[in-house]
């Protein structure tokens, strides 16, 4: 359990996507629902922020520059501090093999694009609500 989380008022969510529009939509909806959102525009930034801020959950796009979503997931899982961080992957790639690859990398959930921000919020709530 990431130590920093228990000290926070609002759960912290990391959102990573190179598409500004997606980041806007995700951040807006999650912030309105009572989360603090950190944004990253590529995999490298996502890893840095995750290591530094230890968010309670990460929403990652798969196709990102520098380090893609699958690789970010793998690295987060490999690191002790972030290995239990819930991860939701977000992507336009929706074929079964891609979903499988996501789960193999260690993701907890997978959301296809085009997506419903409301559904994302519901899934985030479901995961964080359990904690």
């Amino acid at each position, binding site marked *: 359990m990431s130590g920093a989380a228990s000290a926070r008022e609002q759960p912290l969510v990391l959102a990573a996507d190179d598409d500004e529009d997606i980041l806007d939509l995700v951040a807006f909806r999650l912030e309105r629902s009572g989360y603090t959102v950190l944004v990253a525009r590529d995999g*490298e930034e996502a890893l840095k922020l995750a290591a530094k801020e230890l968010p309670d959950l990460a929403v990652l796009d798969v*196709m990102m*520059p*520098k380090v*893609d979503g699958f690789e970010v997931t793998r690295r987060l899982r490999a690191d002790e501090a972030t290995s239990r961080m819930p991860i939701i992957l977000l992507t*336009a*790639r*929706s*074929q079964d093999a891609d979903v499988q690859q996501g789960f193999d990398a260690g993701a907890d959930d997978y959301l296809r*694009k085009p997506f419903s921000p409301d559904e994302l919020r519901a899934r985030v709530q479901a995961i964080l609500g359990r904690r």
Partner: protein
Amino acid sequence: MTEILTAYSLVAFFYFLVLNGLYLFLTALAWRDMGSELRARRYLALDEVFRSPLTPGVSVIVPAFNEQAVIVDSVRSLLALRYPRHEVVVVSDGSTDRTISVLEEEFELAPVRVALRDGISTATVRATYVSRMHPNLLVVDKENGGRSDALNAGVNAARNPYVCVIDADSMLEPDALLKVSKPILDDPQLLAATGGTIRIVNSCGVDYGRVVDVRAPRSRLATIQVLEYLRAFLVARVGWSSLNALGIISGAFGLFHRSLVEAAGGYWKDTVGEDFELTIRIHRHLRERGEPYRIGFVSDPVCWTEVPEQFSTLSRQRRRWQRGLWEGVRRHRRMIGNPRYGVIGLVAMPYFLIFEFLSPVFALTGLLITVVWWILGGLSTFYFIAFLLVSIGLGLLLTTAALALEEFNYHRYHRRRDVARLLAYAVFENLGYHQLHDVWRAIGYLDIARGKTGWGAQPRRGFGTSTDPLA
């Protein structure tokens, strides 16, 4: 004697008129076509192609010889391409450096006895590897056999219905594969092959295999080559493609039906211009089969590549391109002027021979005669200046038009300074570089006459672009 000279200079002048008239015509075609290609961006539906489960797979083939310095970045950028289903096939052509080792370290390669087709015969494959991290990365280690041979091995190994060939030191933009495939995906029966634009990466800011800051090169030679490439790709190829007479799909960025390459016999080993020759052979193959087809150029997708900055390297490259041109034209000489081969036989092939291959002859001798004549007093200074004005003026106009096409449609060079630099060098290009370039190509004739073959005896420094993309 004077009659012969006069006659000759008339011929040279006429040649010059036709050639430049043709360029102007191609420029006009390019203006029209590029406009419609850009308007099409609004409804291209690339996102849908990316999401569709019916989009066929593409195998990206990367022939590599001693590319340890650049291969990892290149493969990284290829693995990150936005395409629903693709694989990267690196073919090491008997590299003597650590090309395979660096790939092994970076991508966790494991030896896998990949079954390879024997559709095209190649030099022996020593080993094959698959990456544990990226199961769609395949590395083939084979005995040295040349770039054509490496490409053929890649075509044998490819597991998808389409193959995209690219150089080991090049970088594709993330959407480039989607964009260059789009015409074929829209009409796979008609489209046999497509090619994309090659741009110069010298002095550009690159991060993780992506160009993030486009700049005009600091090197003078590279700056002039930017102009050459803009004319070659944004004008010439767009223009020829609109006439359905595209004679070259560059080996640095081309997409083909895999089965078609195999059926046509694969790349030809005995040439340094294997991409040119294959394109012509595919035209021939399809025309002989009698089915309607199209080979198209797409100006939007970009492959970034590095160009030589030194005179010696550049001159070697251009001489090689001349040889490649000759070898391809000679092999398919029966197509020249032959109506059986449609616009390729009647227009493209004669163009390559007369206006590409032979242009140094007319250009240099024409220049020489005019200068000598003027010095000898046979030509008045007024007319000499007029002659210079026309040739420089026309050259400037064509280059500025190409730059305008780039500015209007793509606007990649954000800094005013860079565009100004390019414009300035357009002038310098006409005053010296162009002539020097013709001299290099003329030396190419000597190479051909001496029977020079292959890539030269000197130690190879990687492939670079094998055929004149400026043809």
